[in-house]
């Protein structure tokens, strides 16, 4: 080996180092960790699976859609948050929406984040029998955004023949958006409106980071409680007690946010 040029020797040493460290950190370490984890925390190491009637129906950590084949909410179940993972809660294609804070104008290809939020708020409001109104949303559940040109203004997310959410803006007539027309030269003006109280909580209308969020906020659970109680013929207090039972508070009192595990709550409802 001493007769080889030094750069060759260096690369051979490097390869040997990589192979040895691969065995240590890539084979021994994960196998040892798996062995100990399986022995000490068998249930958790294998995914915290939960069963119903002896059959695995999910993981306590992975959220599910509680919708029927058409995608409509099954009303006797608490509903999860919106999800951007595949067609919703697909563990093989986890994803967030990745849409930004000023994504407010719909395009022919996709709905803007603002319109998605407004539409969800409206749908949830209808399902739970409360107002779905929010700032920056039109009554028909679209983003309330104007494109203002020198001589006119258009409500860009409301395609004709819709009635614009306001009639005039600074003296200009507001039109509905004519399909195919290019409004990009106009000034973008989102309109806040005068909504003061919002009934639908934020987590009910936003997609999570993972697309697999197993939890909802306590506020969203409480919003859904009357509907679930009605559908199941249970007293509201009983449902509220179950919510409290399946709420995880902040760890040590200050870490994270209180959250309600939806799958476990629904399983508890099915049992009661």
């Amino acid at each position, binding site marked *: 080996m001493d007769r080889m040029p030094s750069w060759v020797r*260096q*690369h051979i*040493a*490097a390869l*040997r*180092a*990589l192979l040895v*460290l*691969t065995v*240590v*950190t*890539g084979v021994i*370490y*994960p196998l040892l*960790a*798996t062995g100990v*984890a399986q022995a*000490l*925390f068998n249930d*958790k*190491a*294998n*995914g915290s699976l939960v069963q119903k009637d002896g*059959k695995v129906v999910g*993981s306590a*950590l*992975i959220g599910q*859609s509680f919708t029927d084949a058409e995608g409509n909410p099954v009303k006797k*179940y608490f509903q999860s948050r919106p999800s951007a993972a595949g067609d919703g*809660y697909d*563990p093989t*294609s*986890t994803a*967030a*929406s*990745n*849409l*930004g*804070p*000023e994504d407010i104008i719909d395009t022919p290809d996709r709905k803007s*984040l*603002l319109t998605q*939020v407004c539409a969800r708020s409206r749908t949830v409001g209808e399902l739970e029998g409360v107002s779905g109104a929010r*700032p*920056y949303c039109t009554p028909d559940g679209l983003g309330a955004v104007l494109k203002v040109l020198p001589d006119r203004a258009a409500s860009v997310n409301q395609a004709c023949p819709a009635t614009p959410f306001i009639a005039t803006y600074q003296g200009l007539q507001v039109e509905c958006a004519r399909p195919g027309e290019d409004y990009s030269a106009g000034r973008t003006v989102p309109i*806040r409106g005068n909504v003061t109280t919002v009934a639908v*909580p*934020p987590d009910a*209308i*936003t997609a*999570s*980071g*993972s697309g697999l*969020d*197993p939890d909802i906020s306590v506020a969203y659970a409480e919003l859904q409680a009357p509907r679930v109680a009605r559908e199941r013929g249970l007293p509201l207090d009983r449902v509220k007690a179950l919510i409290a039972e399946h709420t*995880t508070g902040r*760890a040590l009192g200050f*870490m*994270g*946010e209180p959250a309600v595990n939806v799958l476990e709550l629904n399983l508890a409802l099915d049992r009661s």
Partner: protein
Amino acid sequence: MSPTLAGILFIASLLLALALCHKPLGDYMYRVYTGTRHNAVERVIYRLLGVQPDSEQRWGVYARSVLAFSIVSILFLYALQRLQSHLFLALGMEPVEPALAWNIAVSFATNTNWQAYSGESTMGHLVQTAGLAVQNFVSAAVGMAVAIALVRGFSRKKTHTLGNFWVDLVRGTIRILLPIAFVAALVLVAGGVIQTFADHSTWTTLTGGRQTFTPGAVASQEAIKDLGTNGGGFFNVNSAHPFENPTSWTNWFEIFLLLVIAFCLPRTFGRMVGDNRQGYAIVAVMGVIAMISVGLTNWAELSAGGTVPQAIGAALEGREARFGTSNSAMFASATTLTSTGAVDSFHDSYTALGGGMLIFNMLLGEVAPGGVGSGLYGMLILAVITVFVAGLMVGRTPEYLGKKIGAREIKLASLYFLVTPVLVLVGTAVAMGTEVGRSAMLNSGPHGLSEILYAYTSASNNNGSAFAGVSANTVFHNTTLGLCMAFGRFVPIVLALALAGSLAQQAPVPASVGTLPTHRPQFVGLVVGVTIILVALTFLPALALGPLAEGIR
């Protein structure tokens, strides 16, 4: 308890935990890198490597060893991905496409862990554990080795040698990373992180849908992903995935892991140069910058500026319910202040100014506290630049830790500083100037530019997080971002080692009344100022077109 108070306690408890670890872990690492004894396992490893552990290397040999090890790592990882379907434990995954495989190989070997792929649908067990996770260990150990070599440049006198790379690599891996990662992996499993080599399985959900269980040795990889400031998620959604980060306290623990080594290395530095106060000054600079950044990011996120967050009533798009807005912002700050790049929430959906702060954190060069090792050597370079600036003001030849900062030293430090701006700005400009580059944007307008700027900032600084709406899995982006990662890692490393070599040869100059003391709050303030001003001057125009244009009305 109000969410804001809970968020403040969350940050304060992390600070407290880091402060408690600073001395013991810093001292332990000092003993690891300065000890003269080799334990039995290490002696076997050195024999297998065919190296003489007690032989010392000049800076050139040290640098060539780093490069040789990294090149071999890249080739090995590339081959493993291309051949995965022919090997065992592949879970039926196809070979990874060439451009993507190059990108991933460079990404993991440079401690970047930029991910243009989705782990659960691209990688089998073998590539994850024997390829990616191994690089999580060794790329972190390489970073620490280079930092220690630079510190030796300051602490040694009249010598040509900086230590032995192979010894530093092996000791960093075996004595520091491996034991902490092992314990951390078990803590994570106790919280619900999975650790299994099982195959995929499916179940029928309560309402009749189908879901697939995505298995993996996640905890063992998660532990080193955070500890080694790597950040490459086992799954596409990284630490937002409930199997990677199931609870609010595992979230705290992961943030702690990704900060702990980088915040303790200044203690090691202080011990090695024989003056603990120098280490405290460096950690104070890191702490001050980090606290300003964490505070501003939390403020931006909790005030939920921007049309959509205002419509929602909170910056909650892309956040997990169990973490909430404030703790997500803390994770995001920590991951960009270090070179980690793991995410527990999706930065693309952050408020304009919150997202802008994350870009700024990376543009600082990831020095507060930075990646394991890379944070310390980056900060020491900034300290060198600071004494130079201070020297200019009073017209004296600057000194740092008794070493003269002459023409050669300041040239190396300046070149080091200039690498990132060149890569970030040229990379972003090239991408924005080409149709194929622009087509990766998901969002339009200033936010689209932020996506591209974020991508090249993240790659060039070896961070690895993303405004993840960007569709970077194209031949163009895989290639250019791969080049940014490689140059952004290895050019600074060579320059830092060259600087170390030149410092080690000097005889120390005795301190005089004219010497700028480098352990006092005055110096801490100077370094903070120089760092922020240099970075702000360099990048303000680019930031003005992206996050600032979007966030300021």
